[in-house]
């Protein structure tokens, strides 16, 4: 059986005053049915643009998807008409964004926003849509659904709004949910509630989840596979265990070393990634991480290495010329 979602060599660029920014510069990955895949990276790594590109939600201008294919349920989403794409969004692919206050419509009741989705995508009649909305609010753990359906987004707390977003994402029995930093704006205890809810529901309903986050802990708790992005590319990809215990890209290693951890004794000093993130308008043909890399050699200036298998674990890929040599050096991380 082919994977549920296959992203192939996707490129998205933005024309800015400073030049062309290749925000997503050729990413490829697959998501299996019911699987949770994390896309990890820092600001400007292209993780959100990559997700929005799958949904063709890139504002044009200034943005443009210049190349690539996104295969989902036997079709290439890049080839669909706008009309067909609207059917997919909110239908077979649900979406949860970071800021529920801006992604919900402030002048429509919660109920209307859920039933609208059902009427649009599933041609449900009003009564059936309302019954389903009540059921969905129950599913996402909102007490007193009949009262809540009549309320407006501003009357709900941040955590409650994100529950509503999840209800809308689940409304049409999607095969895939794309969640872009779904809990970043929430407090720690609420973040934990929302993640547990999403994890529980996607497993129970066998929905695949692509979760975009910068939080390495969240990834460790929930994701089966991980793609690490840097400067528009996936630099390391593999099963979560391999990424955390045997990282083979210097950026992944540096990222894991730089965070203070509650499960480890306190260290005298943190071990940060040196330097600043690169200016995406000025990338050359070399590896984008080399200026900050402790393993960089002259050859790193010549090419940006493609993702290549590293020995040991099936499906573990790294885009580094020296990924085989740095295995031993990274031992300290695990």
């Amino acid at each position, binding site marked *: 059986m082919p994977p549920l979602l296959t992203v192939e060599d996707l490129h998205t660029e933005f024309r800015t005053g400073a030049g062309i920014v290749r925000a997503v510069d050729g990413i490829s990955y697959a998501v299996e049915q019911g699987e949770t895949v994390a896309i990890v990276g*820092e*600001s400007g790594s292209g993780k959100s643009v990559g997700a929005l590109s799958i949904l063709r939600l890139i504002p044009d201008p200034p943005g443009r998807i210049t190349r690539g294919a996104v295969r989902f349920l036997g079709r290439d989403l890049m080839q669909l008409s706008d009309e067909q794409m609207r059917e997919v969004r909110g239908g077979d692919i649900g979406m949860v964004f970071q800021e529920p206050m801006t992604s919900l419509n402030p002048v429509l009741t919660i109920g209307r926003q859920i039933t609208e989705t059902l009427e649009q995508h599933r041609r449900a009649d009003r009564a059936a849509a309302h019954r389903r909305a009540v059921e969905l609010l129950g599913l996402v753990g909102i007490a007193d659904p009949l009262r809540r359906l009549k309320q407006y987004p501003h009357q709900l*707390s941040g*955590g*409650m709004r994100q529950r509503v977003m999840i209800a809308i994402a689940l409304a049409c029995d999607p095969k895939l949910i794309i969640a872009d930093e779904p809990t970043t704006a929430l*407090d*720690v*205890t*609420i*973040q*934990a*509630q929302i993640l*547990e809810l999403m994890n529980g529901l996607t497993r129970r309903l066998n929905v695949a989840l692509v979760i975009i986050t*910068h*939080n*390495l*802990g*969240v*990834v*460790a*708790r929930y*994701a089966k596979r991980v793609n690490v992005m840097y400067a528009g590319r996936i630099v390391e990809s593999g099963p*979560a*265990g391999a990424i*955390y*215990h045997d990282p083979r890209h210097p950026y992944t290693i*540096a*990222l*894991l070393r*730089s*965070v*203070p*951890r*509650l*499960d480890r004794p*306190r*260290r005298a*000093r*943190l*071990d*940060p*990634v*040196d330097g*600043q*993130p690169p200016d995406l308008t000025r990338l050359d043909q070399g590896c984008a991480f080399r200026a900050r890399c402790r393993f960089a050699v002259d050859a790193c200036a010549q090419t940006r290495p493609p993702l290549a298998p590293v020995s040991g674990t099936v499906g573990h890929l790294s885009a580094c010329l020296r990924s085989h040599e740095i295995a031993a050096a990274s031992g300290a991380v695990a």
Partner: protein
Amino acid sequence: MRAPASVAPALLEVKGLRKHFPVTEGILARRTVGEVKAVDGIDFTLRRGETLGLVGESGCGKTTTGRCILLLERPTAGEIVYDGVDLATLKHKELLAMRRRIQVIFQDPYSSLNPRMKVGDIIAEPIKVHAIERDAARRGARVRELLATCGLDPNFADRYPHEMSGGQRQRVGIARALALDPEFIICDEAVSALDVSIQAQIVNLLEHLRERFGLTYLFIAHDLSVVRHLCQRVAVMYLGRIVELADCDELFDNPLHPYTRALLDAVPVPDPTIEAGRSFRPVKGEVPSPINPPPGCVFHPRCPIAVDTCSRMRPELREVRPGHWVACSEVH
């Protein structure tokens, strides 16, 4: 004004601090219909050279506490005694002098720097305002020195904030805080907005500066792992009150208040093997409104170990073992 060092008193004493904001209704005839109890009676002390972490979720009052100490808010009740002086009693001139000694670093390096000012002018502004160095050339030299201290190229003085990355901007914010040679800095979510790889750079810089200049920090944050790394003592706040206060290692190794435990449980650690083995149930419910907080212990509606009396009696912060304070009747 400074107390003799031999006495070694607390640098900062916060006693019974309350800050209530009125909730008003009506456009023409505004009337007060309630109050937000942002800070509702907290006590803590900070010794010279110490870093105290103030942690909690949004609305717990940690930022308001910082703003009261900075004299940006007038407390509703309570005393803030800094180096033996009650801040509320200060007159204009003394206040100005006091402000030099207490500085702040804000969360967002994008909104806390004036986009129309050059970095050099941003850092020089406090020096000008306090009329410390009237000579422009010498002020310029001081700015370059401060930039270098914060790990930036001194030539950045001629740049504008938008030409810099988030991490670089936060270094500018730190340089500005250092411009007046303060002894006490309030770091209000100073590393929260930064990317992981940059956050560690700034944490290291704050530690380096603490050692070099003997600084005292009040480190306000919600990220527990950063707080654990940086602080000697930690106070956990919930809905305007301190629920637990202890030495850093003691708090993290042996958390006693159910809210502190819930917070620590909620933080996932970056290790899939450990996470797979953790049994985990997030604490139920959400933080209640500070306009109408629950009676008794404010945490009781969400608390897994609450008993009948918790809804009636507000537990006082008490010392259950040396230096470890907890506001919970069920912790012994």
